[in-house]
């Protein structure tokens, strides 16, 4: 089996009936997709396969031989955040963080399918993803902001520099 994961070609030893999630986590040590249920029920394992969001726990490797896979590790280019990542960060759309990779990848593809999607379309598009903490309010706000293009992409990945310049209220 062969996969292109975040642009890098991998020949996999994981058996072909194992899930894409298992291959990513156990063989390639790409751990952002999470095994929240291994039942397809939570969306924490969602990754992008050939441009479409997929529950990686439900996807046998044999069905996607040769596919291109994107995880959040490959979402931004060269150390920069992608718009959806910047929006999730700015809007505090994470609490424990376990669901966030799946949410962001699903939202990223949703906005590619439906640029400018409004609140109802965002809720419908992401409704299969669970956040128990539950940060739904701020997740929706983040995706709405990304849909509007209202994100700050100049953010440095280094946490030093940002913090007291904008948040402070003295």
């Amino acid at each position, binding site marked *: 089996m062969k996969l292109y994961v975040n642009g890098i070609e991998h020949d996999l030893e994981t058996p072909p009936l194992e899930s894409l999630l298992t291959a990513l986590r156990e063989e390639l040590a790409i751990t952002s997709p999470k095994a929240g*249920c291994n*039942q*397809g*029920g*939570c969306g924490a394992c969602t990754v992008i396969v050939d441009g479409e969001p997929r529950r990686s726990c439900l996807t046998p490797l044999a069905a996607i031989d040769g596919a291109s896979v994107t995880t959040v590790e490959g979402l931004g280019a060269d150390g920069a955040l992608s718009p959806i990542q910047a929006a999730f960060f700015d809007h*505090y759309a*994470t*609490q*424990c*963080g376990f669901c966030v990779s799946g949410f962001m990848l699903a939202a990223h593809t949703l906005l590619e399918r439906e640029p400018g999607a409004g609140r109802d379309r965002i*809720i*419908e598009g*992401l*409704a*299969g*993803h*669970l956040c*128990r*903490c*539950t*940060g*739904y*309010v*701020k*997740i*929706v706000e983040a995706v709405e902001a990304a849909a509007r293009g209202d994100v700050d992409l100049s953010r440095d990945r280094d*946490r*030093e*520099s*940002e*913090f*007291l310049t904008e948040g402070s209220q003295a």
Partner: protein
Amino acid sequence: MAKHRGRGIATIEYPTGMNQNGDPSQAWVKLKPDGRVDVFAGTVDIGQGSRTVHTQIVADTLGVPYDWVTMDNTNTDSSPVCTGSFASRGTFIGGNAVRFAAEKARERVLDIASKELEIDPADLEIADGEVVAKGAPDRKISISDVAAAATWVHGELITGTGAALKPYAVVDDDTGKVDIDPHSAISYAACVAEVEVDDETGEVTVEKMVQVYDVGRAINPMLVEGQIDGGAMMGLGLGLLEAAYPYYPSAEHRGGEFGAYLMPSLEDLPELDNVIIENPSADGPFGAKAIGEMANNAQPPAICAAIHDAVGVWVTECPATPERVLRALDERAEPRRDGKRVIFDEAVSVRGVSANAGKDAEGHGFILVDD
């Protein structure tokens, strides 16, 4: 078929810290030679953002920029005791531990600065990463320089430890009376839920919740909002959706997957209108009380009150599933009136179910008003 709207109110209170106290949190703060600050505390971040809150508290207590502060809560070798992230104790008790540690470190900063500036520590203050003489703002030294002097000149480590512990409150087993306060503070909240009830399907939709929380002081309002938003959804699940045992007390038909367990999803998200009140506590860090645990307590009764307002029936078993709402509508049960007594729900009471006539071994009644 008709849909009915209703509104219900609930007001709650919730204690900060473990009940009866006796739950320590400890912390250690040290400065690097350039004045950057390391915080060691065992507070587990379960998503509530305790690392953020702890570092905010340390930054302001020491008087350094926030981005000077790092925190290690990763292991029990480097971090002293934290009883745990539960009982809404992180910000108050964990926060006090790091505050106390930072205050000690602050004293050491002033001591060293005093030597460098040759000014009595009592005449010094710290602001924006600098130690400044009170009334003489041109006489100052940066904390970076203080830390460097401590390291390279005075041969000292600027550090501080802190421990927060309220003593264990003893309960009188006969009366429940405690000898001392059994909590660190008490937070309060009110929730008004607006629902729509379909009287033919029993389905309830929460349209809006107005929620007011007194958190003492919102150390980080964004994190507080996260707790309020999240609690609202969890409370909605408690009130309307979730049941580990759908046919309680039967233990059958437990779902084994998310697809068969009704957890709140984005589709259940109502309009949330949050109001944060800051009525500071006397002892919490910067006046903080707590927010985490209480955040899912007010919604279930507010929702069930709103159901009553909408269709006139009390659903007193949570969650208020469509089936329970429909059965209540079918029954339209009126309370039994006996003299001045107004008695609801007799059939489900202990005496309504138990075979032992509702008395315990000491003859105390399991019925509310003794015969």
